[in-house]
């Protein structure tokens, strides 16, 4: 039995009808057409489906859309501003922090929250912060570099203002 599920996605109120068993990841992709959120393992291991739920990174494959009703979700589509890329996205591009790109939306959401809470993380804090996101291409070196670079870019933006 389907029901109406309303939530705020990337600052826009959205409503669609879905069964209670609809995972938030599938709701975003299939019911709202936001295919930036990727679905890898569907049991909470790979981190590809990570989105921001009320600002905190969570696995969207380990949450039901019906539980998320009434809350705020930010997906990779909502990270940029004014049609451009966010500092974290620019840093991943500059540092070649991706190859196939499948894991990237999850990394971007995780790192966005990481740098918001800890603007200048140590190497260990970066490794711990991204430990729940798997990448099968890069070997992580450039992803770690991208996180530090994103910290620089965010700091520069603050100074410019």
């Amino acid at each position: 039995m389907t029901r109406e599920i309303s939530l705020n996605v990337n600052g826009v109120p959205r409503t669609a009808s879905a069964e209670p068993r609809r995972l938030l990841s599938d709701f975003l992709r299939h019911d709202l057409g936001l295919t930036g959120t990727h679905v890898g393992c569907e049991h909470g291991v790979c981190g590809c489906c990570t989105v921001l739920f009320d600002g905190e990174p969570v696995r969207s494959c380990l949450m039901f859309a019906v539980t998320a009703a009434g809350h705020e979700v930010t997906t990779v589509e909502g990270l940029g501003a004014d049609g451009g890329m966010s500092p974290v996205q620019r840093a991943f591009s500059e540092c070649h922090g991706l190859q196939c790109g499948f894991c990237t939306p999850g990394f971007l959401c995780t790192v966005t929250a990481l740098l918001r809470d800890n603007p200048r993380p140590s190497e260990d804090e970066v490794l711990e912060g991204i430990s729940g996101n798997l990448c099968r291409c890069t070997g992580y070196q450039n992803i770690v570099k991208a996180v530090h670079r994103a910290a620089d870019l965010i700091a520069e933006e603050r100074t410019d203002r």
Partner: protein
Amino acid sequence: MKPPPFDHHAPETLEEALDVLARTGEDAKVLAGGQSLIPLLNMRLAAPAHLVDINRVTALDTLEATAEGVRVGALARHARVERSEEAAGVLPLLRAALRQVAHPVVRNRGTVVGSLAHADPAAELPAVLALCEGTVEAASAGGRRTIPAAEFFAGPLESSLRPGELATSAFFPAPPARSGTAFAEVARRHGDYAMAGAAALVTLDEDQRVSSAKVAYLSVAATPLVLDLTEPLGPRPPVTCDWAAAAAYARDRLDTDEDIHASADYRRHLAGVLTERTLRAAAQEAL
């Protein structure tokens, strides 16, 4: 990898939650953080007819730290408890163990009480509750009861909660004066379930000699196992304690099993190493 159908209930008060649990009984599972339950549903290892989603019962989102201990409500997420300076001040072991629970993103959603109710013998928090001799508060339409940790963990993935009951909070008592605690585990990858893990509590007497030493183990038995290691250690000052002898004493009392990640002997070996490591660190903290 999609969950089977279920009837979703979203109570907003404890009374509503207990009412729906009373009606649905054995056919219901409680959904809090879902970080263990939803993988089981996705893999179709579980197919409850009813899910009682307590995420809107905000009255259960509580965390209280006093001199007596830390009380964690059923909706308090791992991350909140981990970040709480008050909770870490009363029981540093709680934060030390929480930092080993999966990954930060999972801890944003998973709950402490949910982890206890899931009763995974490889999980960190059941061992902590068992070591501290904590309790779980259970409520049902028929009343409330307090379940000691020693009775709460009935078997692998099996708690002593009855159909219709909801674990509303857990209480982790503060360690006695002159105590120290430590936590360590060995996993194949950071964030994975441990092949073996240990939590230690060492208490000294007024002359700074070991008066009590206990270690709780995860991943070595069907339920969290607590060993009293006071005999091989006390009553001596920590500097003269034979930690290796205490580890050997513990190894002799562990009946480990093998799985694809570790043989029974290797797991027992790890438990011995972790016994020594955590006892030393706990004694150091107690001084």
